[in-house]
């Protein structure tokens, strides 16, 4: 990594256990640079989604899952028990594989996190909703449909709505768990363009099983295998001349 890169997330010795003691992550160490897109690739079941879900402690929804080690965001260890998890989740937004608009209008969907976390006047909310939708490249398509249910949009639009909703909370980090795998190819490219724009304002970590996507849009790539981080480097290096044999085998399609 370039020396000048500011580090946003610093992971040290992260272990993760599922209910029943099964270990899924082994001593992960990683440094995610700020305002860059970091892709996480690896074969199915290698732990990439599991790793991502530690950053906003969303695994705590499920009884029996636990993480040990250090995950520092801007220097603060977010795995410590005294951390305000709700504030953490505002700062660290997450987009899921399947688009999940709330059962309310487009406007209310985007306004929801604003009303949840901030005290704003009606006009402020309306302005910020428009900003968020513009930021998600969705404003032009929905500006006449703001009162329509979020569920009435197409798949690609729903996913962009979820992105608008996530950025409406004014996060610093955006986590994306295979955001385009449930979406058609044209919408996929739109979303990829969007992610490239988002890089200016946020730190993006994107899990993808589509290697071409990783090579197209990311600045850095981390390769996971069986719960361990095998290699982490600039994307151009990983895809022209990876240091590790396993990485080479995976990206040239010899397994996985």
């Amino acid at each position: 990594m370039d020396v000048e890169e500011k580090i946003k997330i610093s992971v040290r010795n992260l272990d993760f256990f599922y209910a029943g003691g099964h270990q899924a992550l082994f001593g992960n160490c990683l440094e995610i640079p700020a305002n860059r897109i970091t892709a996480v690739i690896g074969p199915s079941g290698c732990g990439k989604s599991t790793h991502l879900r530690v950053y906003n402690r969303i695994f705590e929804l499920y009884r029996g899952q636990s993480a040990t080690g250090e995950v520092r965001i801007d220097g603060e260890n977010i795995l410590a028990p005294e951390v305000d998890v709700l504030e953490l989740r505002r700062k660290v937004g997450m987009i899921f594989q399947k688009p999940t608009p709330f059962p309310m209008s487009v406007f209310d969907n985007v306004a929801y996190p604003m009303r949840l976390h901030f005290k704003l006047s009606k006009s402020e909310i309306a302005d910020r909703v428009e900003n968020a939708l513009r930021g998600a490249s969705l404003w032009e398509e929905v500006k006449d449909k703001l009162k329509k249910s979020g569920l009435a949009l197409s798949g690609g639009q729903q996913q962009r709505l979820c992105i608008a909703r996530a950025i409406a909370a004014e996060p610093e980090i955006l986590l994306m768990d295979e955001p385009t795998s449930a979406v058609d190819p044209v919408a996929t490219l739109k979303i990829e363009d969007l992610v490239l724009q988002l890089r200016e304002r946020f730190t993006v970590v994107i899990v993808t099983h589509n290697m071409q996507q990783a090579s197209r849009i990311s600045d850095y790539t981390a390769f996971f295998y069986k719960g361990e981080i095998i290699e982490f480097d600039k994307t151009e290096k990983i895809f022209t001349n990876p240091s590790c044999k396993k990485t080479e085998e995976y990206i040239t399609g010899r397994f996985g």
Partner: protein
Amino acid sequence: MREQLEKEISRLKRMVSSLAAAVETAVRQAVAAAAEPNSEMAAAVIARDDAIDRTEITIEEECLKILALHQPVAGDLRYIITILKVNNELERIGDLAVNIARHTLDSAEHTRREPAEVIDFSEQMQLVRQMLKRALDALVSRNCLDANEVMRMDAEVDAINKQVIERAMALIAKHPEDVAYYVDAMFISRHLERIGDCTTNICEDVIYLELGRIVRHSRLDAGTDLELSDSAGE
């Protein structure tokens, strides 16, 4: 998808092997024809260059096809790029062999007599042929140490070329009636030296293929770690 790619890369390898064999033969025969001299052999070299050119075009098209359809990455990508470049170099070597053959034919036309003092190319020719063979072996075996060796040999060829040219110029002064012969000799030496350069380029490409480093215009220093590591080094 992987299997299909492997099949196509195998096909490519076979085509490159046959091209390399044809080019080696051309150089060997051009050099032998120049040494004797043998006009028939030289003419044959020139005639067979067409086939070499056609093969070069076919290989380039195959490479483009693989790049477009399979979007290879990492080692596979470097391999295709290397083949593209080596393909080019081999064709150039073929052309240089043709040039040598042409000078042999010209020489046979112009000079009706034995020159007073003959210039001996045998050392040069031997070196160049060795270089070419070893470079092509290194390409197949992906052996960087050998590739490095060949690049070292190029310095010798350059030195010999310089000597030959100086000697020829001296001999022109001494035996001006043989000037045509000596001029042809200088050209042949120059062509041999350029074959050496092309061979060196092939070796640079082999090193790029193996290590992913572009070492143009320089050589690998001794003691460089040439092995791929098995674990991440951060």
